[in-house]
């Protein structure tokens, strides 16, 4: 439902409008999932991360623990902050970033599309540079593959091969949840 709603986005005159259109689509999905949840008497939700490019910049919207990484000049940077219990523990100094990996509360998220009547999407913006690679992924990848290994896998191969490599790494590490990987490269 989320993917088809975002697929209906049309090119916008500028980035801020594109963000507004995307947010509108995701809020509509949230309403539909809420109605479905009430009907079935169970929570139906999904995390989301989206990258919206327009000319020299891209905005990204997310809710939950799906992540966006950027590989630039050989360096991997995580651009999103998880909406999760574990992230809150790290923020409040209860655990370290290293302890967050494989924490027993790792599955507890604080935001998701469909999880609550009001959906709050986080948003930020990044400048695009030629050759940059972006990785959008579900937690099925980063819970099983360390970021330094993601960084290694992100260089030296074309996008389909890199995507296959990342998924294989997660599966080999015992991933049982869905492993979703989407790669984007900024072309000249």
């Amino acid at each position: 439902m989320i993917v088809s709603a975002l697929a209906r986005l049309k090119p916008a005159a500028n980035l801020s409008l594109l963000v507004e259109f995307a947010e509108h689509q995701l809020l509509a999905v949230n309403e539909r999932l809420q109605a479905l949840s009430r009907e079935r008497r169970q929570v139906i939700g999904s995390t989301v991360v989206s990258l919206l490019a327009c000319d020299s910049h891209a905005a990204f919207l997310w809710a939950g623990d799906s992540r966006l990484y950027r590989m630039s000049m050989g360096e991997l940077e995580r651009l999103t902050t998880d909406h999760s219990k574990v992230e809150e523990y790290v923020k409040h100094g209860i655990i370290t970033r290293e302890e967050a990996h494989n924490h027993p509360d790792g599955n507890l998220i604080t935001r998701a599309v469909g999880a609550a009547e009001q959906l709050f999407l986080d948003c930020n913006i990044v400048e695009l540079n030629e050759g940059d690679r972006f990785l959008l992924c579900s937690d099925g990848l980063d819970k099983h593959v360390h970021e330094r290994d993601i960084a290694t896998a992100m260089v030296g191969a074309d996008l389909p091969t890199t995507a296959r490599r990342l998924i294989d790494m997660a599966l080999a590490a015992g991933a049982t949840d869905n492993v979703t990987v989407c790669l984007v490269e900024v072309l000249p």
Partner: protein
Amino acid sequence: MSTLASVLVTNGYLRELCAAYVNETIDRRTYILERRRLIDEAVAGKPSAPPAIPEPFEPDATAMMDLDSTMQLPRRMLAEDDE
């Protein structure tokens, strides 16, 4: 891995704005208008002013009650209580 600060172009103002909206410090209309401004300025390469987020309310120190004086009761009332 490095931190994200180097690549983001809004000095963290957008995240600050999102947080203010989540915490209900600003309403939806303000959120959308300020987000639009920050994104448009970032894309245009203009330096942005921080988002318009009201400061959390704190009572003015000079307006606080003087507890000593508020507890003074007239002598007559004190005498009635004794009876």
